[in-house]
């Protein structure tokens, strides 16, 4: 880990792996050719991109390397998938998604809602789980696309997308999954599923920012978001971000090799952190579905205090995490994920996400466990919901501010 800081915000972004950086560097200097060019300068770059495509194919367990379309990021992949589905099937005007998707999906759906499309946002229970019976009942001939995230970015909760894709397939409906958080953390084998499209982002798996990919199952009807040159077989025009694509390829290979480590070492560290925090602090609980989530993510709600304040205090001690509080995003309300799970207001604002990577150590985890109680205690001393030893009696009644 770089510097003296403890970086536990890997669901936001990850550090570029040294091997990735090293592989990329020549493509900024001597290997500068345009991969579409016929001469030796371009040809070699083209071959390197082909290799990267196969590396990503292997990580995803895709049947063909031509099913991988490189994009600029996860958001572009998501937008491409949704817009392609509605453009290719103009007679269908409904999209099914969930209430807890990333804004890369939700904002697009919101806009389509304004344009007259019907958007079905499946709700979740208090542990962030979907109701598959409800889902099944909504599958009909008007649905152009089902888009459901593989794993939630805030809680790490994993959705049963393989099963959901089967159900969509049976109903003759296209299925897309935003797997930005899942790729590299859990083993994938897309060829044995009915998933038609999948989005991934490079910088979540130790590749640089500004590169992503869309998995597009062979035969899936497709309309490009950007038209222009013949790059990516005409499915995503624009000169390739060669160095980053090559970096993504190396990162995919590293992730493939580390998938076991992710599910053993990283998982054990996460569990140690979670156990340590829960046993050293009162009035806090894990959000999401602890039995079914990514190995690297833990999201804890600290009651009666606010997330941004926690993050600032942690930051002062060199610890980086993130929060679902409204304040950290400048939005109106606490995280839509927490609200969808019906987490009480006074806890939702205090949700704090710790997301690990293979670069974290036990020493770092222990440091966070040791530092946290003083921060939580200090902020509770400032809180009107807190008396000396614990929350005031009937916190909701004892303190009833006039809300603006």
């Amino acid at each position, binding site marked *: 880990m770089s510097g003296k800081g403890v970086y536990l915000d890997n669901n936001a972004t990850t550090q570029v792996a040294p091997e990735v950086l090293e592989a990329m560097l020549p493509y900024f200097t001597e290997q500068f050719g345009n991969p579409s060019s016929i001469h030796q300068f371009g040809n070699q770059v083209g071959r390197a991109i082909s290799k990267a495509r196969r590396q990503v194919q292997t990580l995803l367990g895709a049947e063909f390397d031509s099913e991988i379309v490189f994009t600029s990021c996860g958001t572009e992949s998501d937008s491409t998938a949704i817009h392609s589905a*509605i453009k290719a099937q*103009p007679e269908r*005007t409904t999209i099914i998604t969930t209430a807890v998707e990333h804004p890369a999906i939700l904002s697009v759906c919101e806009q389509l809602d*304004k*344009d*007259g*499309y019907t958007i079905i946002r499946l709700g979740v229970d208090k542990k962030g789980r979907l109701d598959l019976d409800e889902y099944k009942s909504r599958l009909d001939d008007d649905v152009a696309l089902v888009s459901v995230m593989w794993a939630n970015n805030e809680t790490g909760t994993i959705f049963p997308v393989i099963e959901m894709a089967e159900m969509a397939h049976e109903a003759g409906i296209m299925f897309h999954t935003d797997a930005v958080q899942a790729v590299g953390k859990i083993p994938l084998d897309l060829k044995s599923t009915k998933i038609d499209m999948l989005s991934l982002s490079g910088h979540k798996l130790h590749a640089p920012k500004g590169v992503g990919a869309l998995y597009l199952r062979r035969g899936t009807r497709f309309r490009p978001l950007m038209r222009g040159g013949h790059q990516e077989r005409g499915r995503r025009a624009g000169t390739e971000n060669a160095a980053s694509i090559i970096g993504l390829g190396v990162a995919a290979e590293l992730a493939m090799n580390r998938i076991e480590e992710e599910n053993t070492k990283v998982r054990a560290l996460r569990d140690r952190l979670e156990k340590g925090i829960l046993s050293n602090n009162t009035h806090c609980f894990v959000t999401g579905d602890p039995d079914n989530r990514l190995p690297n993510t833990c999201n804890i709600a600290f009651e*009666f*205090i*606010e*997330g*941004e*304040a926690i*993050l*600032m*205090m942690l*930051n*002062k001690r060199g610890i980086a995490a993130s929060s679902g*509080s*409204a*304040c*950290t995003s*400048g939005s*109106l*309300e*606490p995280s839509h994920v927490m609200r969808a799970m019906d987490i009480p*207001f*006074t806890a*939702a*604002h205090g949700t704090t996400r710790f997301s690990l990577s293979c670069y974290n150590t036990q020493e770092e985890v222990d440091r966070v466990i040791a530092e946290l109680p003083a921060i939580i205690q200090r902020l509770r*001393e*400032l*809180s*009107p*919901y807190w008396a000396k030893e614990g929350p005031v009696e009937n916190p909701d009644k004892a*303190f*009833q*501010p*006039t*809300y*603006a």
Partner: protein
Amino acid sequence: MWDYSETVKEHFYNPRNVGAVEGGNAVGDVGSLTCGDALRLTLKVNPETEIIEDAGFQTFGCGSAIASSSALTEIIKGKTLEEALAVSNQDIADFLDGLPPEKMHCSVMGREALQAAIANYRGEEWKDDHEEGALICKCFAIEEPLIVETIRANKLSTVQDVANYTKAGAGCSSCHEKIEEILARELEARGETFQPGAGRPDLVLEKRTVPKKSKPLPVKPSLPAAAVHAPAAAKKPGKPKLTLVQRIQKIEKAIEALRPTLQADRGDVELIDVKDKTVFVRMTGACTDCQMAGLTLNGLQQKIMEELGEFVQVIPMSQRQLEEAGL
């Protein structure tokens, strides 16, 4: 994270006057939905002199909410109730060397807690008159309710109107989509149709039908026809050509017409040079680093074009550019 001032950080990490005041005789409990923040302010008021002898706070909230609470208690200690009531949220923000636009509501919450506590001391009931909503314009920290209210009260119908009345959208212009959405909604509610180019003589819009929202047309969404940028007062054929002096006189006339407005805002503009179709000016006073300068220049350019009957471009020159040019 936020770009907090050192003072904000200092008051967050080392807040003053934490907790309920011993022997307090006034309490104000307020909350801000925007951030989920809430604040309890307790005061110890001397009944004889009405001086606030002590103040303490308890806050459930983010860094700037805690810093604003701390600042508030520091500002009001030793003041009389009347003096304290004169403290504005801007005073709290200024005390902290400024707050990010998204966080200005934290200072509003501080002022409201103070009003609530004083009302409580006087046995009055305090009612909040400030409505919070989504932040639309980041440049000037303008929230949606104010925009909606102003549109309704003044029957506004263009983005330009909204900028003139509320300043929202007059800065970087990134929020124009959101303002257009609000306008479309409000205009529909009063039985009108929002027209993006209305009130802008420099924008000539093609005639088009507005797609009905009720029946979706996902097959071929009709895109808004591109606004054609064509100056209304394009050079008319056969018009006698103006001499340079005549042109300058007309330009000065246009500037004169705009001057009272600028001077009211403690700004001014000065004509430096005219070269072909380019008019060089210098913005002075409050105009120098005003976020509205771009808007002012557009207005000026429009006025000059109307006077001259030809297209010109107005270019502001900075002090440095003027010095380099030996002016």
